[in-house]
């Protein structure tokens, strides 16, 4: 110890004896040449430093040979080595160019100017509002070619994110999510439970996100091989920075309401229509029986009760978020830590969600030799709901209840109209009073890394990631609920546990040879092991009120009790070589070899290469004179990626076990294809990136063509084989499109600025081939089909011709153009749920300390199937849409609504509506407090703001909300399908940000 102390003392003494000199100078900005006050001037490698004064001048004591580091917010940092000169004037360059950005790519990073692939970089803090409720909202409207649809406002409902179209039919189409280099689990644990979906991105606190890079083309994604075909989303979280400890606090709270409501018949119309209908169906008197039952003894003849059931589906929905972060560090060790809490009511009754996230990151440096760090992100999300998406008791299905029905009986209990005479639907209010249903997801992401600088140019990087997720869902229903009445109460629980371990190790090499040849190379290995445990158990027979645990059940329901274990393994080798010649010509090569247990023995390893090239035209001499062009780059790429997003063991013919008459049974559960392999996507991409007029206008135009072969496909086979499909690789699909993004700095003055950014994208999806037959139609209630030569999911059905004025029955067009009933009508493509184009325009204004930003987002040219509307147009005891009240009643009536007793309410163009919309997706108005108050309060910054989501919607859609898809049947094919999916939410919130 003494020796060490002596050594340290000696070191300090020694340091003091070096020759110190006084250096002075002025720091100015490059664009306007004005002096910059407050620039940090430090001696590199120490904390010693000063700041420039109001005239941009500084003075510092430093020894010769040391390096001065100049840094200033919004400008590029600059280093100057101190020589014999004692005056060092410095010009700092503004950092306002998007092209100067560093872009994170798979297993590395590069500068945007040198990128040969297509990558969108998003920085949440630069987008409108730093306090977004969920990360998907950062994508929506801000990334060209990325389609985001929150399919309904149901809390925890599935969110569809597709990058450059859907390139698979029966495989997963979600992108690969990578957080700080670790591929996170994106399993939807809620799928198949009938309950809430889980969303991998929900485990992160949006305030912790530094940047999001969306990799779209093959040059960027091929390094992710068999998992890259759906695009890759790289999420980089915030890290600690050198300096004093910074504290950031953000608080928001607000409320939400439905975007749109529909209009339904009242008691008088309902009773007038429904009574005669049932008399007609089942004989005189039955109508009165039905109405007597549905009015629960109230006087329906005089409209004693007129319940607005739709309004009962919604609740006052408040939400609040709080997020606190601490960060700081010194030259060697830096940390970032944050805690956040979100509480949110859904707009639908009985729904709410609470989420807590804790995040901690530490990065450390050992001399110049090694960097290492550790990160932990833990989140816990609890979601309450009433019942599954496709249940009579899902809140929005309350609209089916009769307006003549009172909600509660005289004792205040909700009335169950399925009982007694039985013509009625079970409802949410009864379920809510007699059940609880919640889902808890714990998500732990641990990662550690160690990077070694072997030489100046060569580094070895290693990282280990562990993602562990626990999912628990519990649904207790007492004996008054429909599901558990016969069981005398039931408690159904799902428990799932997933562990994903991902070790990776790779070498990086970066060197400039002879000033003209720059080589940037990466080679590495990665493995991924995933293990899943699943169990479900249903206890039945609950006799003691309040004791609702499985332990209190009198029996176990064997039919709904089961468990499973699953595993899969990936082993990969990957590499990349980027070569830059004279800083003008860029070439890239990348490849990955993936082996996976998911595939058949005969096809276990795949190879995914890519090549790319870029040309920085502005570096050419002939462009030097074109003064209005600041930067111009042409880039192109071609490569292969794969999709391996399928269940385990799909290559095998398997028998499952069951039970019959108390004994074990074996039955064929799937037929297997031993040649099963990945889907392969060939993608060509070409793009132009530009920056013009002194960086006032910048943008990017891209074209792509993706051809996907060997589709995962539940290939229909003759059922006589013992099953009706076999999962195999067959068929092809293509996606072609263009993406344009523009960013214009219209006004840039000291007190006022106006920035406009816009993007739009068009994707054409086309099924190129199917194995057998050209048409794979939907089941009878829906119309989403797969048809060769058409986009995925087109509506295949019949065309409504109108109502026969003489008979009142619906008519449809036959193939020869004549009018016929449904059975004789021609089946054809009658709608396309895929949009023609999507886009957004964002305006951002800044006046002194005020700022205003708003984004209009649009989806154009898509059709939506109102799949539930055939139940809302009369004919049964469901309540009736006001728009259907003009139904035919007597010969000669000219109307488009058939008579209510038209027995066959066929799905047809009658229930297809244009889903195009323009919506004010986001509006934020904020105020940043000035230095005066900040200095008094000793704060770095303080901001108050108002944010509104979905404030305005312009659409001709006939249903609730055009941003819609029924959760419970959502798939790559089943899109644009509204089945009691309900409106989205519109929200208003106020927020406060404080930094100190």
């Amino acid at each position, binding site marked *: 110890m003494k020796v060490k102390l002596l050594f340290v003392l000696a070191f300090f003494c020694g340091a003091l004896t070096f020759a110190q000199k006084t250096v002075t100078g002025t720091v100015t900005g490059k664009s306007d040449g004005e002096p910059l006050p407050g620039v940090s001037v430090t001696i590199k490698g120490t904390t010693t430093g000063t700041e420039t004064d109001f005239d941009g001048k500084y003075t510092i004591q430093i020894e010769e040979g040391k390096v001065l580091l100049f840094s200033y917010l919004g400008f590029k940092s600059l280093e100057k080595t101190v020589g014999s000169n004692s005056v060092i004037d410095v010009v700092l360059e503004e950092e306002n160019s998007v092209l100067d950005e560093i872009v994170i790519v798979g297993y590395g990073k590069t500068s945007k100017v040198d990128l040969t692939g297509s990558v969108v970089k998003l920085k949440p803090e630069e987008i409108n509002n730093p306090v977004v409720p969920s990360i998907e909202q950062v994508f929506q409207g801000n990334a060209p070619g990325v389609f985001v649809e929150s399919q309904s406002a149901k809390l925890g409902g599935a969110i569809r994110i597709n990058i450059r179209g859907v390139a698979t039919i029966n495989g997963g189409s979600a992108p690969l999510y990578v957080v700080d280099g670790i591929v996170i689990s994106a399993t939807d644990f809620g799928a198949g439970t009938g309950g809430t979906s889980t969303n991998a991105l929900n485990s992160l606190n949006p305030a912790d996100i530094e940047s999001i890079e969306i990799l779209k083309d093959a040059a960027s994604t091929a390094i992710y091989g068999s998992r890259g075909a759906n695009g890759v989303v790289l999420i980089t979280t915030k890290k600690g920075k050198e300096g004093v400890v910074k504290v950031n606090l953000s608080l928001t709270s607000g409320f939400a309401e439905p975007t749109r409501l529909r209009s339904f018949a009242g008691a008088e119309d309902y009773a007038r229509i429904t009574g005669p209908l049932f008399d007609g169906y089942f*004989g005189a008197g039955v109508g009165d029986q039905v109405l007597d039952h549905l009015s629960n003894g109230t006087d329906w003849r005089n409209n004693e009760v007129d319940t607005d059931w739709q309004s009962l589906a919604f609740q006052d929905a408040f939400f609040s978020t709080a997020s606190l972060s601490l960060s700081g560090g010194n030259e060697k060790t830096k940390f970032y830590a944050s805690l956040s809490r979100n509480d949110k009511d859904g707009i639908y009754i009985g729904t709410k969600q609470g989420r807590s996230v804790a995040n901690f990151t530490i990065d450390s440096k050992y001399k110049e030799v090694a960097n290492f760090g550790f990160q932990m992100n833990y989140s816990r999300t609890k979601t309450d709901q009433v019942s599954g998406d496709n249940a009579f008791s899902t809140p929005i299905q309350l609209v089916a209840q009769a307006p003549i029905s009172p909600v509660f009986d005289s004792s205040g209990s909700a009335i*169950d109209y399925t009982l*007694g*005479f*039985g*013509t009625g639907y079970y409802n949410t209010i009864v379920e809510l009073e007699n059940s609880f249903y919640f889902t808890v997801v714990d998500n732990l992401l641990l990662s550690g890394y160690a990077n070694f600088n*072997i030489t100046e140019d060569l580094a*070895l990087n290693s990282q280990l990631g562990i993602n562990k997720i626990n999912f628990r869902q519990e649904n207790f229903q007492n004996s008054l609920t*429909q599901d558990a*009445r016969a069981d005398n109460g039931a408690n159904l629980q799902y428990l799932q546990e997933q562990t994903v371990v991902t070790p990776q*190790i790779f070498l990086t090499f970066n060197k400039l040879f002879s000033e003209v040849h720059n080589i940037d190379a990466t080679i590495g290995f990665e*493995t991924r092991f995933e293990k899943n445990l699943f169990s479900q158990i249903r206890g039945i027979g609950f006799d003691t009120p309040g004791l609702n645990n499985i332990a209190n059940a009198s*029996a176990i329901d064997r039919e709904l*009790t089961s468990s*499973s274990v699953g*595993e*899969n*393994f990936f*082993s*990969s*080798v990957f590499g990349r070589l980027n070569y830059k010649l004279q800083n003008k010509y860029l070439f890239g090569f990348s490849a990955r070899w993936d*082996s*996976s247990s998911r595939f058949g*023995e005969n096809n276990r390893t795949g190879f995914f290469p890519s090549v790319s090239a870029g040309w920085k035209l502005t570096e050419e001499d002939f462009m030097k004179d074109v003064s209005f062009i600041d930067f111009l780059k042409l880039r192109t790429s071609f490569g292969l990626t794969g999709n391996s997003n399928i269940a385990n*063991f799909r290559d095998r*013919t*398997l*028998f*499952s*076990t*069951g039970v*019959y*008459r108390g*004994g074990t*049974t*074996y*039955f*064929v*559960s799937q037929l297997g294809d031993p040649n099963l392999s990945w889907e392969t996507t060939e993608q060509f991409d070409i793009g132009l990136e530009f920056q013009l007029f002194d960086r006032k206008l910048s943008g990017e135009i891209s074209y792509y063509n993706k051809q996907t072969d060997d589709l995962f496909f539940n*290939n*229909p*086979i*003759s*059922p*006589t084989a*013992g*099953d009706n499909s*076999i999962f195999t690789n067959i068929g092809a699909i293509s996606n072609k499109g263009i993406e344009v993004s523009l960013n214009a700095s219209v006004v840039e003055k000291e007190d006022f600025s106006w920035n406009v950014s816009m993007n739009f994208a068009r994707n054409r999806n086309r099924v190129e081939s199917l194995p*057998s*037959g050209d*048409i*794979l*139609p939907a*089941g*009878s*209630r829906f119309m989403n089909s797969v048809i060769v030569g058409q986009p995925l999911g087109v509506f295949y059905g019949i065309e409504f011709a109108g109502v026969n004025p003489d008979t009142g029955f619906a008519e449809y067009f036959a193939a020869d153009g004549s009018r016929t009933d*449904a*059975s004789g009508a021609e*089946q054809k493509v009658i709608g396309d749920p895929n949009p023609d184009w999507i886009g957004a325009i964002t305006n951002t204004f800044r006046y002194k300390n005020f700022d205003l930003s708003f984004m209009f987002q649009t989806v154009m040219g898509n059709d939506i199937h109102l799949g539930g509307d*055939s139940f809302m147009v009369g004919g049964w005891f469901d309540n009736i849409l006001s728009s259907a009240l003009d139904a035919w009643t007597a010969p000669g009536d000219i109307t488009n609504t058939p008579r209510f007793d038209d027995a066959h309410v066929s799905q047809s163009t009658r229930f297809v509506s244009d889903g195009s919309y323009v919506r004010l997706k986001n509006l934020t108005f904020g105020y940043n407090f000035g230095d005066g108050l900040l200095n008094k309060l000793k704060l770095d910054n303080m901001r108050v703001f108002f944010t509104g989501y979905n404030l305005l919607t312009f659409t001709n859609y006939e249903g609730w909300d055009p941003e819609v898809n029924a959760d419970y049947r959502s798939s790559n094919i089943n899109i644009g399908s509204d089945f009691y999916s309900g409106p989205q939410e519109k929200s208003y919130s106020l927020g406060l940000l404080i930094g100190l």
Partner: protein
Amino acid sequence: MRKYILILLTAFTIGSCEDELSLEPFQSIGEEIALSTSESVEFVLRGGYDRLADTDALGGDMLLYSDLLGSDGVLSFFGTFDFLQDMSRKEMLFNNSGANITWITAYEVINQANIVLGAQDILDAGVRDRVVGEALFLRAISHFNLALLYSKPYSAGATNPGIILMRQEGAGDLECRPRSSLQDTFAAIIEDLEDSIALLPVTNDVFANRVAAYGILSRVYLQMEDYSNALDAANQAITLGTSYSLNTNYADAFGVSGNTSEDIFAIQVAQGDGTNGMNTFYAPASQGGRGDVRLDASFIATFAAGDDRANMIDSNGFIMKWFEQFGNVNVLRLAELHLTRAECNMRLNSSTGDTPLNDYNLVHERAGLTAAMSVTLQDILDERVFELFGEGQYFYDQTRLGNSIGTFSFDADQLVLPIPTSQTIPCPDVEQNPGYLN
């Protein structure tokens, strides 16, 4: 530097893991295990019953579809499933989803049976006859139920298309096969049943036995209007089945877990073991169902005063036979065999086994009614309606007799389910039933 080499080596090791790449599933098994022992082959056989008991097959839908097709004047469908509404209105489209799933499930049963028949060598000699007999029975009853729903009645012509016969030893292949004629279909069913009769024991817990095989055979011949063979089969079943007897009370025959004394073949449902698909559609919400099917008042009015069987109808017209969520689905009851024997003896003017009047009165008196002094063919046919209502038999009895269903002739196109899209898409050459788009 040595440290780095070590890390690199570790990485290489991670990169090549053949064992991890050939993982095995944890809760499913391959054919090599499923067909490894005599016991495991019996599990596959029981898997055949399990599929047959599926709600898409005899566990519910096959009986439900039949009742909906024959609904006119008997019962009404109050539910919201459009494919069932279409059946009850006789307005089915080619893509009727019920027709689809039931077709698939029936062939799954047949495939299970064929797998067992292909593994006969693995079976112990002591169980081989019984197991093979049961497999043949499962194959026959599935082919038969398919023929009843997806073909015109035999009475409309034996040369009409039947169904696709899938009779081979071992698992099915992907080949597209044509439909056989009804004649060939029925001949194959009879052959399988006769083969099973030769192999099955007389008693076999609740599983297929010789009595059940004779019983189903009597149904097959009845459909063919081959009354003499139907009589023989029904009589054989009754004579062999000395351990069977009618329950004292009609109500006791229903909603029971495990067979009652009159159940010759039934789908087994117990709490936590199987699902009663009839309960789902026929029982009201208070009994765990959807309350979709209820008898018409006009039909209820046809029961004689004092007929116990009318007590199985509640005040809202729901059929109480299916009120027990955890009770069996009856497939073949002894009462039906007595009525079949009575009908055939009556038609053939014979008294094989017993007189038509005695067989008739056995069923009639059990219902709490006074014994008849004499009986006509029409009395026997009517008795079948009262005895078997809501059990999926009415429709087949009407069409075999050439009776109209409401306004639909017994051989109307609208009374036959479509060959479903699951068959026509992979095998577009298969013959579709008349009246449906292909």
